């Protein structure tokens, strides 16, 4: 029972955070709220029995992501958002997609259902044979590193790509001052 209550309360907190991130105009404060938001998400992951995901979300979402956002704010030095307008088409679209999702969700097996196909499928094999076949008691690790190790290689490639892209965008290139001035003119004159 405790987990259900925790689940609902945390979700409500999360919704409050999301709404306030949407509406707050002070960007620095938004970054703080964003950190809180992912902290709550991580706690929620834990309540939903996913400690590894909670671990990652806490490190990556709360830590890196928030710090990156703060760093962006610190570099740009912009702290206020302009007053936003209500966007009717977007509102309409969201209602539509949300309605569609709610309709689909009624067909989904309820939370924690034993009979859901997801639990009967591949996952069952992982839980029953995982330790025997890979020798790792943490099934998530076993699947991540062995059964679906190629995804993890892809993940590494994604990080690498992201790093290369950020370097390409921000790396401080050795440029003599005169060249830099020329570059600036080139960038702004078109």
């Amino acid at each position: 029972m405790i987990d259900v209550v925790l689940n609902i309360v945390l979700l409500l907190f999360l919704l409050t955070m999301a709404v306030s991130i949407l509406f707050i105009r002070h960007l620095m404060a938004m970054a703080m709220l964003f950190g809180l938001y992912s902290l709550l998400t991580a706690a929620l992951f834990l309540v939903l029995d996913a400690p590894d995901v909670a671990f990652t979300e806490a490190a990556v979402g709360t830590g890196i992501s928030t710090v990156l956002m703060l760093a962006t704010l610190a570099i740009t030095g912009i702290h206020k958002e302009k007053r936003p307008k209500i966007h009717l088409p977007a509102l309409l679209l969201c209602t539509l997609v949300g309605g569609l999702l709610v309709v689909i969700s009624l067909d989904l097996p309820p939370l924690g259902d034993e009979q859901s196909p997801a639990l009967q499928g591949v996952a069952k094999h992982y839980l029953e044979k995982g330790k025997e076949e890979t020798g790792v008691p943490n099934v998530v690790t076993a699947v991540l590193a062995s059964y679906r190790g190629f995804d993890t290689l892809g993940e590494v490639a994604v990080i690498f790509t992201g790093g290369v892209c950020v370097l390409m965008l921000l790396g401080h290139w050795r440029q003599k001052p005169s060249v830099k001035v020329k570059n600036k003119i080139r960038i702004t004159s078109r």
Partner: protein
Amino acid sequence: MESVLDLVLGHFNYWAVIALLMIGLYGIIARQNLLKKLACLSIFQTGVFLLFISWGYRHDATVPILAEGFSRYANPLPQVLMLTAIVVGVATLAVGYALIVRIHKAYGSIEEDAILEKDQQEQE
């Protein structure tokens, strides 16, 4: 009455997450501030992560780390998928932030409509 309560309790997670998704989607489309767009994109992605983890949840079960005295474990596969997806999401966000820094350097603003206006003026 009983069944309605069951339905609500069993699907509350999904609905809350759907609400999160829609808040994110609205922000992505409607907000002009690029940083806010990215934050909303992140909310949207986190919503999807929560959705997956909810699908992997199992009543009266424990975390999928095999141990003595436990026999029911949560579904590990969605967790594995989300581990990958979280990292992918952050890599994308990092590139997005880098782009914002560059855009700010080039235009002096991070409001989309202001930037477009500057481009318009330049063309005329």
